[in-house]
């Protein structure tokens, strides 16, 4: 059965190299967001949930650079705190799915045979559940919040990584250099883990970087639907959701700021992910 991995693989296909300035800008931007998230408690001008009912839906001012929301909370401060869930949750998903995916992919790709078939069948089934759907189902089962969706997304994305790893490992395994290692007397475990795996890691890493962007957007969507991060916790998706009703009154800023932030972070992550995969694309054809 065809799978989303194939789609992802095609997306990765090498292309004319982008000028590194976009890459640099993206990296700097992501770095800044990360720092803002980590040091939010020092950098943010206000506590994220500090209500100021006398100063609601205010425009940008020296006191509130990005204005305030319907409760008079400082949008900038909430953005900084919101960056925590925005970055941390996808990070957890990506780390978990990458580790599990690589282990399973290695197992399937290297051992082949029935293990490969069984795992492949399991992946097919999980693939049939789009990540967001699995996350929504997890919420239906275990209640709202981020825990269930993060676990569900990790499960949903693991097969992506696993299938990519599997196909990379399987194609590496048939290469003469692997046969050469065998002929030299190296053991299968050593070849698989110490030689072949490092060769496919960059591509898997680039794919995981791209996954980070997708997961971020999907988790934000979940919060937007009111199924993810719950009020009053600052979260970008939830902020868009909360500020939505202000749109009719012409208060665009509280909704627009987190929306734009999501778009920018995803663009930055994609730029970095694609450039990474471009850089290595030439060396190890997938």
């Amino acid at each position, binding site marked *: 059965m065809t799978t989303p991995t194939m789609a992802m693989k095609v997306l990765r296909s090498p292309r004319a190299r982008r000028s590194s300035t976009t890459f640099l800008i993206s990296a700097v931007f992501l770095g800044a967001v990360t720092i803002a998230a980590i040091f939010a408690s020092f950098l943010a001008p206000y506590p994220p949930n500090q209500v100021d009912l006398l100063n609601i839906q205010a425009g940008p001012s020296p006191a509130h650079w990005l204005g305030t929301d319907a409760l008079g909370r400082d949008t900038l401060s909430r953005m900084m705190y919101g960056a925590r869930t925005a970055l941390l949750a996808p990070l957890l998903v990506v780390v978990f799915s990458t580790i599990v995916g690589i282990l399973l992919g290695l197992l399937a790709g290297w051992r082949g045979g029935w293990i490969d078939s069984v795992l492949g069948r399991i992946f097919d089934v999980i693939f049939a559940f789009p990540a967001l759907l699995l996350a929504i189902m997890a919420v239906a089962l275990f209640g709202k919040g981020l825990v269930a969706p993060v676990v569900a997304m990790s499960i949903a994305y693991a097969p992506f990584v696993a299938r990519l790893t599997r196909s990379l490992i399987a194609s590496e395994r048939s290469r003469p250099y692997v046969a050469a290692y065998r002929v030299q007397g190296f053991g299968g475990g050593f070849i698989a883990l110490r030689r072949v795996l490092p060769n496919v890691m960059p591509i898997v890493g680039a794919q995981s970087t791209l996954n980070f962007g997708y997961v971020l957007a999907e988790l934000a969507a979940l919060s937007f639907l009111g199924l993810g991060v719950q*009020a009053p916790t600052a979260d970008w998706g939830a902020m868009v959701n909360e500020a939505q*009703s202000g749109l009719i009154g012409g208060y665009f800023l509280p909704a627009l700021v987190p929306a734009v932030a999501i778009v920018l972070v995803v663009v930055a992550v994609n730029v970095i992910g694609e450039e990474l995969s471009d850089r290595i694309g030439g060396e190890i054809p997938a």
Partner: protein
Amino acid sequence: EPEKAQPAEWELTSTTDAPSGDLESFTWANYAEPYSLDYAYAFDYADNMVLANVCESLMRLNPDWTLSPGLAESVAHPTPETWVYEIRDGVTFHDGTPLTAADAVASMNRHLDPAVGSSWYSTYQNVASIEQTGDMQVTVTMTGPDSQFNLGMGGSAGVIESAATLADKGADYGNSTGGVNCTGPFSFGEWQSGESITLERYDGYWDPELTARSAEVKFIFMNDANARTNALKSGEVDGGWMIPADAVPQLLDSDQGDMLFGLNTAVNNLIISDLDGPLGDVRVRQALLMALDRQGIVDAAVKGYGTTTDVLTTESVWDGASDAAIATAFGDVEEYPYDVEAAKKLVEEAGATGAELTYVTAPISSDFNVYAQATAAAAESIGLTVNIETVTPNAYTALFSDPTAREGVDLFYTSWYLSSPDPLEMYSVLRTDEFSNYGGWSNPEFDAVVNEALAIQDPAERSEKTAEAQQIANEELPWLPMFEAPVTLFMGERITGVSPSIAFMYYPWAATIGAR
């Protein structure tokens, strides 16, 4: 950028111009799709807004919140334990079959049937039996004296449905395929799931006063506040109740129709659900109320279209009350002005400084945030700490029905509306061990006053007792009253005739709407 909110200016409208003629059809925005049109489950604005036009009750609750005969031509109260209803003759259901006492008995008995699980059981909690005592007569026997039962017959609890239809539809009764078969000015037309419900004028309607002016009314479900506002602003729909607060200023400016404010019976309160905790001390409750910037809350939550209050009822429900009673109930009560310093002192006196409170909220609408955050801010300003716990809307609903859900919870918000024209409905709830006395507040004096009032059949006389109860509640603050806000209505430029009032829940208001 919109400038800083000025103190909002608004006045209540009780009626709008009479229609100049009939209409083919008009559309109405409903903020949600009813889950069911089964009157036994019609417990929410969305359901009742539609149902009120299709199904009628024994009594009729008018826009001015008075009660008049409905499907019962008359009601007698021969003994304190019995209510006798004479069913109106010549009324037919939408399928053409005549209304009989048997239909009334069948409809009312459903509320007592555990298998149905009626949302209106509480109205019937003291009912011993409902029997047909004549061709067109139904007698309800209570387990004890009860002045309130009949007041509930103006709402969904008093709806009469064809007994044959109930038996025929079974489990599908009231859902989008089953529909309903009642006696109202409109009959159930089409229910497009998720989209709309269309009602059609019932030509055999019995009451010439309320014969529908429009051949058709279409309720369109629009969950999204933005969508609703836009649709109203652009004239895509002709009107809607309960306008999102954010949109009120804009719709006031709109030339597509009129933004109107009407009678309401709801007061927005903070329920104290744990009187064994720090809030068990009345001084702490008073302090918290004084520390709440209630005007600020009004501004943020309803954009200023509301007034702060110190009591748990609105004047609108004091139908039939004596002037003296109203003066006592609203004039002679404690005021709790915004005064952080005084409040702080009270807390210190009570030795509660540093105490922690748990406030439960849910992402139901944007104003919920305001109450939560404002309460937290108020508590902090007087040396208390409030932990806000956010739960799902369903878990939040459980707070109102499940005592275990309230464990460890000190405060939660409610907009408590009265569905009968008597403030006693509110205060009977606060008696010791009442189901909805969520904090377990107990005051023997209060209980005695309320019980006394319940037994008084004359409304004016009763109201003076009720006023006493209101005074006690005002001093003791079992719940913290915050503000009352009018019902909001937008009426597009094509239509007119409706009376803005919370009675849209029970009164066939859509029948009054015709061409402007």
